[in-house]
């Protein structure tokens, strides 16, 4: 099997994806949930750049990924703000405390 760079980068994408998704299923800490989201988005961004690289459109892919970084940072900011607020209201970052909305 000839292992190309493309394959390797895609493995990184899959790895980030797998780790992030697993973390979302397994962690109960809100801040870690945000960390997991960051990891996921890094995977997606890598995939975009990879696609651009293979299509000989690196510059285009870069400009897309720039928007992804900005958007995702904003999501992280809002997520962290929410987490901080929750911590201050409920005294914990445990997801279990966030199960009042059920059924």
């Amino acid at each position, binding site marked *: 099997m000839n292992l190309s760079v493309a394959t390797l980068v895609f493995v990184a994408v899959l790895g980030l994806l797998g780790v992030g998704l697993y973390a*979302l*299923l397994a962690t109960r800490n809100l801040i870690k949930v945000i960390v997991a989201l960051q990891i996921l988005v890094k995977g997606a961004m890598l995939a975009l750049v990879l696609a651009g690289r293979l299509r000989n459109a690196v510059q285009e892919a870069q400009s897309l990924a720039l928007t992804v970084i900005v958007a995702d940072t904003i999501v992280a900011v809002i997520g962290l703000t929410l987490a901080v607020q929750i911590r201050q209201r409920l005294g914990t970052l445990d*997801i*279990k405390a*966030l*199960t009042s909305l*059920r*059924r």
Partner: protein
Amino acid sequence: MTLILVAAMILLPWAGALFVWAAGNERPRLQNGLAVTFSVAAGICGLAMLPRAGAEVVLNFPVGGAFGDFTFVADGLGVFLAAVATVIGSLAVIFSVDYMKGEHQLGRYYAMVLFFIGAMVGLVLTSNLLLMFFFWEITALCSYALISFNNDDPKAVAGGMKALIITQLGGIGLLVGALVLYAYTGSYDIQALIANPAIVPAGVLAWMAFGGLAAAAAKSAQFPFQTWLPDAMEAPTPISALIHAATMVNAGVYLLARFYPAFHGVPGWTTAVTLVGLVTALLAALMALVANDLKRVLAYSTVSQLGYMVYAVGVGGIYASQFHLLSHSVFKALLFLSAGAVIHAVGTRDMRQMGGLGKQMPLTRAVFIIGSLALAGIPILNGFWSKELVLEAGLMHGPMWAYVGMLIGAGLTAFYTYRMVTMVFYGSPRSALHGHDAGPAMRVALIPLAFGALTTWLLAGPFSRLLSVESLPMHHIEPENTWVILEEVFSLPTLIALLVVALGLVCWWQRERLAGLGQALKGIGWAAEHSFGFEAVNRAIVGGTQKLGEALRVTQTGWLNWNVFGILAGLVVVLIVVILGGR
């Protein structure tokens, strides 16, 4: 002129509904006045329309899209039912002036009644199947709103819900019919279908036919959907008279009669219709025998009489079925309204607490007995003639077993009618109830109906002309002279039928002696009291659905981890579908 009348019959009540609603509940007198004015105006239009029936399109709004042309055809069948709806509707409204005195939400009550009257007229006059479904559902909506008019009473709420759900379930049959018609012909034109049923493939026509039967059975409270009508008796009594005896429940029979030319060729359809009518007539009569609530007895008898009409359609007696519908509308509205007068006076519906009320309410007693005799089929009241015509049609064109069944039903009818009359008006008072006779507005409604119960049979001839080939070309009903029609009744089968009716009465008089027989039939009585298990089935279905809903709520865990798991699971499923079946 016909155009204006047709539009007026629908729009006058609807405009009235708006006005009454806008008048506000602080002005009940104004509301009464408005409601009576608009309904009576519609009633006059309905009567004025009777001589103008024809098979042509009188109104057409091309709406386009998937909605077709909204057309109206004022043919005999439609005009007749429109007249029944508007006239009995206006009588019920007049009756309500006394009956609903002091209610808080009069605006809602009248608005719904008037809305119903307009929708009922639309239902019978339109020749667009979508529009028919549209009006069909509006009547269900009004019926639901009026049954649960008294929303504080959980029984009323439950009754309204039950009526709504069951009629809607059946309504799916009509929905399927309309959708099929559009899918195969690109229009909703009923007349085109009736003129040539071959425009849809035979297999599809069968779906339409049985779908229509389901819808009709649900609307007319026929087997196996009969359970909602007795519970609908929580409605104010004028509503029971108008919607649940004289008009809306007839919509099912109307549907069957309207489509008879298209559907009777479908294998098994007529047999199914006959069977539904027969089973319903017998079951409901048995349940009427054991019920103790005055309005429930009347409700069961309505179901049973509707069974007669359905049976008549099944054996091809469209004319007989519609004539019985006319008689039944009159005498059953009379019975309900006079029962309403009784209930209004004594404040209970339980017949076991009544008795001996006749002396206190002579007028009510008189009109109630007229209605009862008509119901029992005693000559020369209108119920006698029409029921005999139904049985005649059954004997001539239907299977013998069904005819015998219907004869037994006639006997049972006489029996429970007599039981009801004696329990309410005769004997010694069973409790300290004091009745006062019907009020003035009530009388205005009761007396014309009593007169009608005595005389509408004289209309047999004009009625046959109304339904004749000129307005209903596909139904092949011959216009006849009244006397020719009534002569048909005087034959041997009629005597047999009368004997059965008499037997029913004798059974009541001899009930002490027949106590042994009663013991033997105890099982049937027990089953009848438990509505032959249909209530249990209803409850099981409703309970099962609710349990399922409750059980499913566990899936909303509130855990963020599980929520993300849902997304991932969805992704996996879609990926697998795409990988396996992606074409």
